[in-house]
């Protein structure tokens, strides 16, 4: 495949969608970034409008780099213009022409940082919390000193998988856990496995690498394409080619479901197959519940939990299944936070020049959380959880951790 932005067939479809724009400006009013900074002129402006001035090979505009990629514009567009996808492609073209800074290369590879941090996790975590080191990191590579970074662990999720004796069952699913579960939050993967097993499923957990989403959002398309194509192969171990693939990281799930093909133009038989079988964990559980197959032997969870549906979860167009499931739990006081974006947008908000913007984007959400003062904030996306905790001091968890507790887990 040629690496020109003007390349794949999928790209032609995304580009052709600009024809549907009638300039109604709905996207501009919904964009959380344009609302807080003049550095980003707005999704209509840098999307369907600017696209008419691009021919590939030379990017006329730099401001598209300030698009956070949250995807709200595409979701609200009444004419189905693929605005966020246009922006993503334009950003990639920009990086291709000008080269991506080391910082972007680094944050785009969570496995790299995870591997480096794991053997020396306590030291790594200390360093990440040390203000002098963080200050130096901001000055040298441009990661904002206050930006949320995950805590490294010495035991990866795959280490746990290696020692886990799963249940055997005729009903099987493949679990796509993603990088954050592997390197930073193995407990999320453990709880997903426990919940699925509790519901009578055998969980197949193949060895897997990054889906390439951070590469994609940093405009590094060739590497992202390679990553997602490799992952799709890894997710089809022998005899599993018709099983549901369950994702607990919403953004990575969306990558498999849609973005790999629609934004990256990646294509392979495995990817096409996996893409059609991928479910968000709560989407899957809600379907079980609707069929009357979800176990509801819940213990009361006497907590106030504020739930935030992250952008990439909303972009899956599956509603808010986590809310519907958590509502089944007795004793739980559930507050729906009806705000659009926390600002972090994957790796956007960790960058020196974008940190302040990201914090302003998340301000309404943070204010709601602080006003509510919940015991826990639940959010399906890892980077959003880290952002919310860093900004508000609240403890944030994946909503399935609450479900796990209701099933009697600790």
């Amino acid at each position, binding site marked *: 495949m040629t690496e020109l932005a003007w390349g794949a067939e999928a790209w032609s479809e995304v580009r052709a969608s600009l*024809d549907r*724009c009638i300039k109604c400006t709905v996207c501009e009013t919904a964009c959380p970034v344009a609302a807080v900074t003049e550095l980003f002129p707005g999704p209509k402006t840098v999307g369907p409008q600017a*696209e*008419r001035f*691009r*021919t*590939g090979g030379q990017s006329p*505009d730099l401001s598209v780099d300030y698009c956070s990629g949250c995807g709200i514009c595409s979701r609200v567009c009444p*004419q189905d213009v693929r605005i966020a996808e246009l922006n993503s492609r334009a950003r990639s073209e920009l990086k291709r022409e000008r080269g991506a800074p080391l910082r972007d290369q680094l944050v785009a590879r969570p496995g790299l940082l995870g591997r480096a941090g794991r053997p020396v996790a306590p030291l790594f975590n200390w360093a990440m919390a040390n203000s002098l080191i963080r200050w130096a990191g901001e000055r040298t590579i441009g990661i904002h000193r206050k930006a949320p970074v995950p805590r490294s662990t010495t035991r990866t999720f795959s280490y746990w998988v290696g020692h886990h004796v799963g249940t055997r069952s005729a009903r099987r699913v493949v679990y796509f856990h993603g990088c954050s579960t592997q390197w930073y939050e193995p407990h999320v993967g453990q709880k997903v496995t426990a919940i699925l097993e509790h519901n009578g499923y055998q969980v197949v957990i193949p060895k897997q690498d990054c889906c390439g989403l951070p590469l994609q959002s940093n405009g590094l398309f060739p590497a992202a394409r390679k990553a997602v194509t490799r992952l799709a192969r890894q997710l089809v171990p022998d005899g599993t080619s018709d099983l549901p693939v369950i994702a607990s990281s919403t953004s990575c799930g969306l990558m498999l479901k849609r973005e790999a093909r629609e934004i990256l133009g990646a294509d392979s038989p495995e990817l096409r197959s996996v893409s059609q079988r991928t479910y968000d964990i709560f989407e899957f559980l809600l379907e079980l519940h609707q069929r009357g197959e979800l176990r509801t032997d819940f213990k009361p969870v006497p907590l106030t939990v504020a739930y935030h549906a992250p952008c990439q979860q909303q972009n899956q167009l599956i509603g808010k299944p986590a809310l519907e499931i958590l509502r089944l739990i007795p004793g739980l006081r559930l507050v729906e936070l009806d705000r659009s974006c926390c600002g972090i947008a994957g790796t956007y908000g960790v960058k020196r020049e974008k940190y302040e913007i990201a914090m302003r984007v998340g301000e309404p959400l943070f204010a709601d959380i602080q006003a509510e003062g919940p015991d826990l904030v639940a959010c399906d996306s890892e980077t959003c959880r880290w952002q919310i905790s860093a900004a508000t001091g609240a403890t944030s968890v994946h909503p399935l951790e609450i479900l796990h507790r209701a099933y009697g887990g600790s």
Partner: protein
Amino acid sequence: MNALDTDVLVIGGGSTGAGVAWDSALRGLHVTLVDRQDFATGTSGRFHGLLHSGGRYAVKDPGSARECAAENRILRQVAADCLEDTGGLFVSTPEDDLEYADRFLAAARAAGMEIEEVPVGVALRDEPRLNPKIRRAFRVQDGSIDSWKMISALLRGAQAHGAKVLPYHKVVKVIRQGDRVEGAVMEDQRTGEEVRVNAGCVVNAAGAWSGQVAQLAGCEVGVRPGKGVMVAINHRLARAVLNRCHLPSDGDIIVPVRTVSVIGTTDHPVADPDDTECSPEEVHQMIEAGELLVPGFKESRALRVWSGSRPLLPKTEGAAGAGDREVSRSHTVLDHGARDGLEGLVTIAGGKFTTLRLMAEDTVDVVVRKLGRGAECRTRTEVLPGSESHHFYWIGNRQQEAESDPPDDPLICECELVSQHDLDTVVARRPNWRLDDIRRALRVGMGPCQGGFCAFRVAGMLHQEGRYGRAEANSALREFVQERWKGVKVISWGAQARQTRLDRWIFEGVYDLEHLPE
């Protein structure tokens, strides 16, 4: 009545007239150029924008091909700012004769064109939307011309050398003294005032209208207006000009020009060059034809339809006695002294935008001979104003500039990225702007929304600045919206129909356009 004296009076402010004005002015002659409307409103402002490599004429009209190839090279040197170096492809679609491709290649080389055959895979890589079933592909030096920029640059250049230009000055009388033309009387179409221009020589550069001008002088020019219909597609479907490699016919070329792709064109003889009506059948024919070069063309958003009249001249007009009825695309300078015994009048007819410089050179050579003074032609090497850096115009230029616009300089036209500062700069240049003149100068209202979001802004601003009274602003807005509607009514389907609906809601629902006070 005001009276002016000039060496050369040029009638017609299209590419031909502007070229003649620039050429004459460089030769040290005093020039006055007039047009019945704004400049570039006739055929020049209504063409597809192709800078010919010569390929379209290579087989059938080698003389024209040779001229195009040579002039293409010269224009790239002297008028870079008005040109985009898109390159061009001639491709053999499944419906085109492969044997023609061989003849085409040989003829193109013979005409002095730069041409290379490229593997089909390479052509498809460069142009992903090109029909994957093409069988051969040739790369040529086609480009696109921004006609308004070009004509504006020619006129600014001429003015810098003393020329006087008068838009909206319609010739109402050609002054004859016996068998000699001595000038003309013009009526200012905006004020009704008459101006008399006494000229050493009058050049009839009215193109498709040159028959009408000649009649005023009492002689005949058998120019035959040939109407061509074009459709602009909302965005660029290809980077290069795409041509079918076959004998030129209708709808076989897609030109990436400014922010759009233009598909052209048809050729129907019409009696009146002002006949610009486009029938749904002609539009349908264009859209269908595009499918052969770019599959899915039909689903693309058609933005606007228009037509222009080629100033075709039967060969019999040029060389008396030649029995050939065939129409040439080359140009002819008619010396009415030799031809009709009427001195002081020269008509330049036929030709095409790409050869405007050569047309002007040939014309002014005759003028200089008649006047008995004037220097050698300098347009081969003299660079046009704006093109001094020799950088070609590039589609991304406006986006690049918009990026650096200060935040307090808002966009007036979002589609074509025109800022308030751009608007202020242009309207300060001269009094009496019509909204449509501003459109040609800045491309306001030419994008996907066709004025829906910018027309009222411009009218309102001109009113605020005191350039328009209330009634004037209201009628200017109505007139502009009507004119835009003319170009979209026959293509009102799909996205453009939705756009038109939204625009109408804005104009009728928000502004109550039909009932604005006079």
